[in-house]
């Protein structure tokens, strides 16, 4: 029997954007997309796509659906998980989603999962690199009433349960969770694979399945934000580095130690 997996994926500004190019429009409280740097799929969500693909590699019969909620999707970006090997791309694409916060995102995801499901596993990255809230997938488990395991670095399907490793500060827990469950995936799982040419060709032929809010019986009114963004800004740094000078690099090292001693730091 096919195991249906949904992976939540978010389109975010490329976090590798150099600090010098990271700019904010303070009149709209939004990040100005740097010229020529396209958005990416949130890195931890690609770890979650990889987790699903590893289950397939291990011989499980899985169907992998990638799901996202937003507006202004860049299709080349959002098709990357398909190029890696995912089967379907489901988007809730609606301009009514422009101003929602993550409580709204969770409501929309819950609605589309209920419409498109049932799913056996719901996977998300441990957090998104834009708002760093790390709670959409956790919240979804509450709204759907499903068991939750966070920070999963390894998973294995055993019929109607999954064996998991959950990262803790100095090691990991071994955990058994039922199917269906909600899991957040962490980068300790391993680097996401690069799409190969065949994957890219297949992805280019696939069409995303697109829902609007009205398809889901939701309106912008149902998604009123709980957090109102008042101000977004780049903090000013007033730190002034003291560069250690000397005759050569070996001398720098010696001088550094002496300087730290002088400041009573060592």
């Amino acid at each position, binding site marked *: 029997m096919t195991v249906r997996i949904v992976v939540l994926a978010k389109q975010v500004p490329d976090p590798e954007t150099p600090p010098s190019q990271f700019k904010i429009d303070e009149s709209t409280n939004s990040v100005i997309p740097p010229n020529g740097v396209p958005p990416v799929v949130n890195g931890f969500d690609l770890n979650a796509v990889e987790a699903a693909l590893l289950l397939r590699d291990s011989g499980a019969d899985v169907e992998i659906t990638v799901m996202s909620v937003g507006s202004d999707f860049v299709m080349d970006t959002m098709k990357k998980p398909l190029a890696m090997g995912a089967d379907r791309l489901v988007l809730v694409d609606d301009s009514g989603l422009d101003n929602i916060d993550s409580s709204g995102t969770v409501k929309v995801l819950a609605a589309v999962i209920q419409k498109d499901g049932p799913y056996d596993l719901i996977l998300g990255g441990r957090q998104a690199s834009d708002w760093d809230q790390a709670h959409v997938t956790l919240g979804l488990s509450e709204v759907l009433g499903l068991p939750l395991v966070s920070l999963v670095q390894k998973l294995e399907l055993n019929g109607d349960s999954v064996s998991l490793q959950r990262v803790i500060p100095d090691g990991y827990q071994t955990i058994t969770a039922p199917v269906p469950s909600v899991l957040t995936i962490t980068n300790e799982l391993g680097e996401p694979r690069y799409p190969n040419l065949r994957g890219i060709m297949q992805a280019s032929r696939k069409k995303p399945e697109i829902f609007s809010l009205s398809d889901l019986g939701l309106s912008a009114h149902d998604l009123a934000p709980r*957090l109102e963004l008042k101000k977004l800004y780049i903090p000013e740094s007033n730190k002034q580095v003291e560069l250690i000078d000397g005759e050569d690099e070996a001398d720098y090292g*010696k001088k550094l130690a002496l300087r730290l001693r002088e400041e009573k730091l060592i």
Partner: protein
Amino acid sequence: MTSILLVAELDEQDEINQSTLQAIAAANGLVDAVVTVAIAGEAPSSANTLAVEKVVTLAEVSVVDEGIYDQITADIYALVESTSPEVVIFGKSDFGSVVGARLAFRSDSAFAGDCIEISNGGDGFSVTRPVYGGSALAEFDIVSNPAIITLRSGAYEANSETGSPSVEAFDSGVTVEHAVSVTGTVAEAREGVRLEDANFVVSGGRGLGGPEPFSVLTDLANALGGAVGASRAACDAGWIDHSHQVGLTGKSVSPDVYIAVGISGASQHMAGCSSSRAIVAINKDADSNIFKEARFGIVGDWEKVLPSFLATVRELRA
């Protein structure tokens, strides 16, 4: 009056941990604050002198709930339902991040994680939190009740204020059937001092070029009585175990001296070490972002700098 529930955590010695003491200081700074501290399990005797109105003890987090938090989430939810606080504060630990988020969605209210500031004025609560990996700060007004937040460690300073709170037990009357079961724990071997507790941290990044240089960093850490850290790039490359990762999704450290070797200083990394007393940057690239964050810097090749640094440290500490 502003009713605040603060969920405490204990440290390895079963004492109220630093993050909780910092959160108490933050809570007491709010206008008209009336603070209740919830502690899972037996309260340490120091709880009797916390500078708060009330201490409530909940059932202990049992081994089967550790890391899953189904029972403790149910207990805190019941406490929130019965006492209706306007704001619930957790530390930004694994526990706080998971239980806080679940509580927010269970009670259909607002969640703001990893806050560095909370305030209340005429119109409810506002928080400031780092976003985009720390490249920017965002200020939010919270427009639902209760507001559930986690507070970044080090954002507030603990103070020495004391009080004489009433202490009572709270029984949620809920026994959760665990759908998820923890079958074991595997601890990575650790030598020397815990990274989070170290007064000196020597961290390596992509600039080290491979796993071998970490032995040099380890020598230096040992000479200083400190611990070895790493950037996420070095951990993801497999050069060193992820338990050494410092940063937004790794460990937060606040040593006296944080020595960053071959680390570019991305905001996600700095989020884990910016509360260090002094950051020392050693990097070949003078334009590297780390020099904007550091107090002391050496533009140079770590392979040439570190041996003389180590030798001088040994002389000074001999």
